[in-house]
């Protein structure tokens, strides 16, 4: 299936190549570079590029293009999903997935890639299994390895590979047994000029960090499982039990993993926790424009809104902006025309605002459209949909684990049209 993989950085250098079948010359990437040039922006490069003898499927993450070369028909999502999995694995192994990091760990990268694919077909992609086969590099291990001459390659087939729970390592041991669950909800919304909601939906995930000894069998139940409209599970979740009882029952993988992602049914009206008042105007005659935005809380259920960041792509005609924020810091990049305002916390008594003028290109006509405002924010201790975890139980092990659940609401793709 997947013939070769090329890693290309933003300046167009191929800095890593790996082949699973016969070697494909790196000149095949020329087609990719062509497409890249045509697309002008990195994110506009088409994910699938046909060339006379091969097809190039690529994903773009962390400023690196991961280009897979394939030769025959294959479901494109198969390859794309796999490439994303590769990136996730690198991130898992090295903390960050960046060019220098990959170059520094090229041997581990190679070993991992070798295990992930055989003849182009995925072999082991579960992080728990991979980590048993190839141990992730840590400073301590590097030191120990150089002294003792031991290796970071496992020599036994991970038992998980053959068991019914391939995602879990065996023989896990912790002195502090703990299980943390983060319920994170993101609001995707488009708000129109007048402040009414065009579309809003809540997408949530439950990320878990489970460090439990042995083979724990966990069940997690919700107070209001009906809220969950569409769900997708980590393979460890027993689907049948969810179907019949709406209970998440699973033997967790060791470490960090995404247990569940869900979508809250559309019938429920989404509470929008912030509003943006804006007054952006360009005048035809003068070369100055007025700019004024204010953010304020609404429907926050008494919680503070934090980490507010406002981003806006200004029209090309804007040369510069002179603005004064009532709090936080702002920057305007005259090249990309990107305005960003890091607001911080919203104090309901004193609403943060950003006021000032824009200087426009002299003689240019006024832009057709006002810029859209993209909003980011966070609300701790609140799941905006009202989802609540009822209880978490553990079976199969005797100790008492420490359990923790955290809720958080974030802005997803939150956009205000002006």
């Amino acid at each position, binding site marked *: 299936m997947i013939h070769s993989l090329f890693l290309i950085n933003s300046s167009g250098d191929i800095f890593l190549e790996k082949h699973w079948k016969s*070697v494909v010359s790196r000149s095949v990437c020329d087609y990719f570079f062509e497409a890249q040039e045509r697309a002008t922006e990195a994110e*506009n490069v088409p994910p699938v590029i046909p060339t006379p003898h091969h097809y190039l499927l690529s994903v*773009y993450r962390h400023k690196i293009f991961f280009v897979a070369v394939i030769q025959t028909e294959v479901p494109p999502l198969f390859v794309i999903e796999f490439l994303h999995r590769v990136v996730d694995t690198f991130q898992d192994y090295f903390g960050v997935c960046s060019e220098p990091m990959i170059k520094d760990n090229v041997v581990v990268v190679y070993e991992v890639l070798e295990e992930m694919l055989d003849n182009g077909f995925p072999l082991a992609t579960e992080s728990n299994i991979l980590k048993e086969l190839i141990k992730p590099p840590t400073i301590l291990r590097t030191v120990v390895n150089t002294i003792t001459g031991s290796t970071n390659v496992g020599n036994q087939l991970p038992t998980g590979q*053959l068991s019914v729970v391939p995602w879990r390592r065996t023989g896990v041991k912790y002195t502090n047994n703990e299980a943390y669950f983060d319920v994170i909800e993101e609001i995707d919304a488009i708000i129109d000029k007048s402040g009414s909601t065009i579309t809003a939906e809540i997408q949530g995930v439950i990320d878990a960090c489970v460090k439990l000894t042995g083979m724990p069998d966990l069940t997690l139940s919700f107070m209001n499982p009906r809220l969950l409209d569409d769900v997708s599970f980590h393979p460890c979740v027993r689907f049948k039990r969810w179907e019949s009882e709406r209970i998440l029952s699973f033997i967790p993988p060791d470490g960090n993993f995404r247990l569940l992602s869900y979508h809250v049914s559309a019938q429920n009206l989404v509470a929008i926790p912030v509003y943006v008042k804006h007054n952006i105007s360009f005048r035809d005659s003068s070369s100055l424009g007025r700019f004024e935005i204010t953010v304020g809380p609404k429907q926050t259920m008494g919680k503070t809104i934090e980490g507010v960041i406002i981003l806006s792509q200004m029209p090309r005609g804007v040369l510069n902006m002179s603005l004064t924020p009532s709090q936080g810091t702002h920057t305007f990049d005259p090249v990309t025309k990107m305005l960003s305002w890091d607001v911080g916390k919203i104090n309901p008594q004193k609403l943060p605002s950003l006021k000032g003028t824009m200087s426009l290109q002299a003689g240019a006509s006024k832009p057709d459209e006002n810029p859209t405002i993209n909003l980011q924010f966070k609300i701790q201790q609140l799941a905006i949909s009202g989802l609540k975890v009822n209880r978490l139980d553990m079976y199969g092990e005797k100790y008492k684990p420490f359990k923790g659940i955290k809720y958080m609401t974030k802005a997803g793709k939150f956009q205000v049209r002006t």
Partner: protein
Amino acid sequence: MSSNSFVYNEQSGGGEAAELGQEATATISPAGAFGLFSSDLKKNEDLKQMLESSKDSAKLDAMKRIVGMIAKGKNASELFPAVVKNVASKNIEIKKLVYVYLVRYAEEQQDLALLSISTFQRALKDPNQLIRASALRVLSSIRVPIIVPIMMLAIKEASADLSPYVRKNAAHAIQKLYSLDPEQKEMLIEVIEKLLRDKSTLVAGSVVMAFEEVCPDRIDLIHKNYRKLCNLLVDVEEWGQVVIIHMLTRYARTQFVSPWKEDGGLEDNEKSFYESDDEQKEKTDRRKKPYAMDPDHRLLIRNTKPLLQSRNAAVVMAVAQLYWHISPKSETGIISKSLVRLLRSNREVQYIVLQNIATMSIQRKGIFEPYLKSFYVRSTDPTMIKTLKLEILTNLANEANISTLLREFQTYVKSQDKQFAAATIQTIGRCAANISEVADTCLNGLVCLLSNRDEIVVAESVVVIKKLLQMQPAQHGEIIKHMGKLLDSITVPVARASILWLIGENCERVPKIAPDVLRKMAKSFTSEDDLVKLQILNLGAKLYLTNSKQTKLLTQYVLNLGKYDQNYDIRDRTRFIRQLIVPNEKSGALSKYAKKIFLAQKPAPLLESPFKDREHFQLGTLSHTLNIKASGYLELSNWPEVAPDPSVRNVEVIELAKEWTPAGKAKKENPSKKFYSESEEEEDSSDSGSDSESESGSESGDDGASSEDTSEDSEDSSNEQESENGSVAEDKAATKRNPETKGESDSEDGEKKNKKSQTSDSSNVESSSIEESSSESESQSENESESRKVTKEKEKKLKQDRISLTKDVSLLDLDDFNPISTPVALPTPVLSPSLIADLEGLNLSTSSSVISVSTPVFVPVKTHVLLHRMSGKGLAAHYFFPRQPCIFGDKMVSVQITLENTSDQKIENIHIGGKKLPIGMQMHIFNPIDSLEPKGSITVSMGIDFCDSTQTASFQLCTKDNCFNVNIQPPIGELLLPVAMSEKDFKKEQGMLTGMNETSATIITAPQNFTPSVILQKVVNVANMGAVPSGQDKIHRFAAKTVHSGSLMLVTVELKEEGSTAQLIINTEKTVIGSVLLRELKPVLSQG
């Protein structure tokens, strides 16, 4: 990076070899590489030296650098001889890196690569499955044609390996070999056929992949495995799921009739209905519903549904396309929600999913309409996503939502991304064309856009307006005039050409403007684009025909200009037009019709989705994404008119069993043999090929040679004994089969059994599988049948107490004709367990029945204490039943033991000492553990053949210093293996197991304890059983077979009308186990 290399350069001034080497990997900037080229060679010298050094660390360092070079695409092929020497390194990391290197360069250095082959051959026999697997991987990845026969042998052997992981790798190797040498196809298909029958979920995905690559047309190989694949699907790893689903989609399209009633029309349906299989004939009375879905078709649709919830986008997409292509139209709707969910994912995933939704939304708007708002465009989306979303919005537009959509489009038109704005205008045009109610509104809106400042927007509007006007020409004189004026300002050629065409077409409606436009255009003719020039000529011609008085001269002027144009198209057109419209002596009859030709009514263009023509590609494929047939694309066939015979999918028992047995024999022998005869490896590896193919006769000889003398005798004799017994058993089985198939009443059956047992033959043969009974199993079956005889006369409640007693009795009897089992098992404790396992491998066929062993529904994680840390002097041991088919032997129950060192000293040499097993019982011990660190723990697995009894297996767990007596007593529920069977089979089997073989009890409890899930949960908690899909709500069925004898164990929970009582029925030949299980299940089911 280049700065990096400088740093290294400076350091290397110090002159240390190691650092010089490092430099080689560090310099990757192209500029640097040239400058250092000469020194590169020298550095390679260093690498060679390091590779030849005696220290592993130096070798490892060198290998790491070499891999670094490969990663950067540098040529490291000249190091081949030095590297290949290390292929046999003991250090596993060096070994792995050498493998990496070999795979990369072996193709270029074929002769040298051959040096490494023997190492792999040896590794193929390694006891460690990981090493076997990786040896196979590398061996098959070395693309050297000479070794094709060796690869073929290795694949054949590995495909029969005990470890599913190795078999998985064998499946991968098939594809590699096929691409290297397509001549091997026939042989490879045989291997595929064998692996397709594999029951491991690990193998399924890979072998289907091999199938798709090597012989996608051999659909007949799938028939027998179809149901198994459907049932396993949920448990297969996600990548395998994608491949299997795609394959099954194609399969379904060839094997089932179309569920799309409206497509076929009544006649077709009628026909297929009358002519197709029996099943449908049975339902002839149901005239109203002429289509009945094949249950297998339904099975596939039902079993893929949970996968829509997968986290893997590729799996979700695969299921979506399966539903799209093979499910009834009414059920397709459920995929939309999951597909919309994927839109939250990364850009690339969105792109593919949107493309597929676009195609789907053309045919079936309905299913995506509720999610209209999910396709609203955000300003931050990349352009390609925006255009795709727009496409879908257009497809979804209808009378009800068009006003909302148009409002949304207004925002898009103003977008700063002008390409997107232009696409929006196209979209508005299409909406106007499709929904006549809004045509005028759209047109007005577009006309407003004509005064937009951006040229691209205006041009696009012009083009769209042109198309719209063409559809309803009459009343739009004003707009045409307005557009005529635009000619002065607009410069985009397509737009100018469109305006000219429009004016020419409507020149009679705008009689004043048209000639004036021509005048202006004549002036600028030479500087126009070719496209515009052609339209000027057209306009001239049309005006000449309608208004020759005013425009004759102008037209001739334009024609003259065209005659000398640089473009031959234009010159051609000029000549053509001149001949046609200007009457002269040469012009023929055509000129009379010139007006008709030029001013004919032209059909309005159809504004269609660009995704229209992608329909014929299977969704979710590369070909669909590219709209080109990609190489290797497999067409989805049309539904057959008449369904092919569905009975081909029925799995027959006998065939299966026979085919499996010989393979099973050969494989089990080899790995463990190697274990004992390291010294003979060279020899062995050379004959191993013939070995694996030859029959067990030669094997027993081999074994004798490699094991100790004491065991030789006993083994040989046991072999003899076995073969005798085996043949007898087979004869019996043959005679047995007849009555069984005839379906004689079970009382007769029961009698027969008893007679059999007197003649000391396996009665197990009975139970749908024909295992050649081994000497061991014989003793067991003897016990059983004996006990049955006794219990016949006894009250049921006494049974349990009887067991031990009857055992003792039969033991005495047994010693007479079965002296072998005891000597083997007891006197040579260290060697025998593995030997026994080998023997077992010889004798037992894999489980086989109508009913295949399925994966456990639920694995309880309850552990039992084997050895408490207090009594174990720091060594603690727990055991639990993983409910996996045991890899050591088919009759064994696998037990996982977790050993834990709670002391603060290392515990050394943990092994199993003497065993005190009841007659017939066997154990496969784990390999001794050298040492266990303080606080360390290790999990090992064992296999114990409990002979289908709950007797305790006692043995000694020894460390270097101590021995502890421990014992394992299995709960009755762990002596079972769940089987998957259909309701029909269940009933059939149950029908054969009534009377004596049936035990039942009444349960009374609160109704809420009788929900299906609760019952399932409770039953599987107690016993390792598989649920049987039930057609009735009130009846729950579970099936399993006993591990040792493979007798069926059927549990039925039948709910009574009142809701608080239920009848628990257990049918099994093994009445003892049955009644014990009943006793265990009853309280569990009764309690709240």
